[in-house]
């Protein structure tokens, strides 16, 4: 029993099925829409997107969490079409990918304002719709956790406590500080995925164990961004890893008994906005990565835990505590 918000309305936890927790219909930095270099006719974008999600579904996939925050390509009405056409549940997020993607209007806003904004998108709706967010995005700017990033983390934690949804982050850089911020705001660390722990950007496999030991989730969620996929036309992005190296990293944590503290996802864009992605799809999670895990001896039960059980417990909304936003505001006012 439980509830999860999707672009087509709330669904029951049991309806989630095989879930990829960190994906994108299309992510792009604010402003990329003005550069015609990246324009593609909607029917073509839709076709590519539908084909990828259909493949995911044919392989048993049922739900994706779209980790595109405010202003970076989140497009609710478009996603509703995609979800209807493919049958894949899409869980939309509030929050910001990182401080450097925050648009000017929001850059100077207080923690209280941002917490209210996220809470509004979870409980009332996103951008004037009645579609409610199912999780909150926070993340680290290029160059490390910034002051604005920290405001977003604190606000995300407050809204997460108040509304009962979890947090997923962009990057594991400064992971200890990320977790400190979450704890300072009184949110349990089992409500956060520290994302992109398997990406090359700020890579630190030792850190995975600290994240797991503190009770947060380690995000192995750039699966398929393999250096081997680079071509002269489209080089692998700077966060790509050799495929085998990523598997080694994941297996090290699993073999230490922490598979229950990890999540797996692809961070694939169905259609990247404003940047050139190597060939990539959420379907690769089921097509390539799960067989690779099994080859390395990962059991069916563990696979089910990674694809179904962990996402279900993580995404299921906990009892909302709306008074917490008010309480936090009062506490701040008193300081």
């Amino acid at each position, binding site marked *: 029993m439980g509830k999860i918000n999707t672009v087509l309305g709330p669904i029951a936890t049991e309806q989630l099925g095989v879930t990829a927790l960190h994906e994108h219909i299309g992510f*792009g*930095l*604010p*402003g*990329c*829409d*003005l*550069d*015609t*270099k990246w*324009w*593609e*006719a*909607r029917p073509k974008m839709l076709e590519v997107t539908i084909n990828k999600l259909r493949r995911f579904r044919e392989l048993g996939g049922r739900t994706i969490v779209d980790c595109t925050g*405010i*202003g970076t390509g989140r497009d609710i009405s478009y996603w509703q079409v995609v979800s209807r056409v493919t049958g894949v549940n899409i869980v939309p997020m509030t929050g910001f990918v990182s401080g*450097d*993607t*925050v*648009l*000017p*209007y*929001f*850059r100077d806003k207080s923690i209280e304002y941002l917490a209210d*904004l996220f809470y*509004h*998108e979870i409980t*009332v709706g996103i*951008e*004037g719709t009645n579609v409610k967010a199912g999780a909150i995005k926070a993340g680290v700017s*290029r*160059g490390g956790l910034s002051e604005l990033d920290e405001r977003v983390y604190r606000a995300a934690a407050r809204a997460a406590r108040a509304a009962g949804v979890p947090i997923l982050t962009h990057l594991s850089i400064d992971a200890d500080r990320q977790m400190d911020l979450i704890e300072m705001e009184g949110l349990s660390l089992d409500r956060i995925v520290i994302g992109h722990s398997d990406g090359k950007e700020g890579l630190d496999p030792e850190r995975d164990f600290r994240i797991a030991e503190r009770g947060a989730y380690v995000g192995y969620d750039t699966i398929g961004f393999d250096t081997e996929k680079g071509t002269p036309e489209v080089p692998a*992005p*700077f966060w790509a890893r050799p495929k085998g190296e990523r598997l080694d990293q994941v297996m090290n944590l699993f073999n230490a008994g922490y598979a229950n503290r990890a999540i797996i996802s692809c961070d694939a864009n169905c259609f990247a906005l*404003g*940047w050139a992605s190597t060939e990539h799809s959420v379907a690769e999670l089921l097509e390539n990565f799960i067989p690779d895990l099994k080859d390395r001896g990962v059991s069916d039960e563990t696979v089910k835990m990674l694809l179904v059980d962990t996402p279900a417990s993580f995404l299921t909304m906990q009892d909302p505590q709306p008074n917490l936003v008010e309480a936090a505001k009062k506490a701040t006012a008193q300081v």
Partner: protein
Amino acid sequence: MADHLKDNVVQTVLGPISADELGVVLPQVQILSIIPGAEFAPEIEMDQQKQYDALKVALIEYKRLGGQTIVDNGGMFKGRNVQLYRTLSKETGVHIIASTGLGPGTMVGSYFTTQQTEPPGPMPLDRLAEMFANEITKGTVIPRRERTGPAGLICTAANKDGITEFEKHLYRGSAQAALQTGAAVSIQAGKDPVYELDILEKEGLDVSRVIVGGLDSLDADERGDALTIARRGAIVALDHAGWTPNRGYVSNDRRAQLVLELFKEGLGDRVIISSNAVGYAVGHEASQIGFDHVLTSFVPMFREAGATEEQVKQLLEVNPQRILSLEGEKGLFKPEVEGVDITWVK
């Protein structure tokens, strides 16, 4: 292009027209001004009908007072809505000139400042210039759908605390686009207008094609920037008519004196006047000064201070018409399908 166009062509949102059709011009204002991101905030009302109604009233009043053309200097990322401007222009008969360009840095999205490269960096200079130039020659963009009527001017701005490295980059990209198209560049100067003009000149741009805005600030007046900039050959924009010393700008009395001083020095062909008015502001406070202010308040004061009718005409018509004219034909709007308003995405 059509034969009726003489030498001087100006690009309005409805297409190129001859400069002398512009009549009285109000440059250096913003028609619709939206802080980027405000459209995503639940407390912000995004109602195009309200925007349209308010702007239509303002434009009709401006026209009643004798105004014929209005120039939006907001660039491409601060709420510009060329489709709305085209409708307003058709309905009111006021010529509207839209701008391309970006800035100040605080009003720009991270696609332009922090690209997904290692290390992160801004959009390359040649790409910036190409993007701006295309908005003049191929039409302004409506995100991921189409191009519509052209931009007629390239606008950028620097931080009031001093121009940043990224803003220098924007200035250089704007200058390159101006060289490619023959369109003028309008800057809203930061701390050091002379230095900012140098950046554009070093890029190879003739300073007579540059409008330097904000030269009626108290600081600029104290330094004598208006005279310095005009002597260099650039266009001085005293573009805060109606703003007062407690907001950091000289009074209209002083502004009128400044214009007369420029005329006395033989630099009367290098000055324009505006109020930096915002027609409709979303997500920020704007001055209550309207499109009418220059004609109803400044011009009478200017006449009283001793200006001749010829000087008034120079200020409101001759100068802006010349500056807004494209140099040569290389920047002339050429929609991909002749005679059609829109160019669809490929």
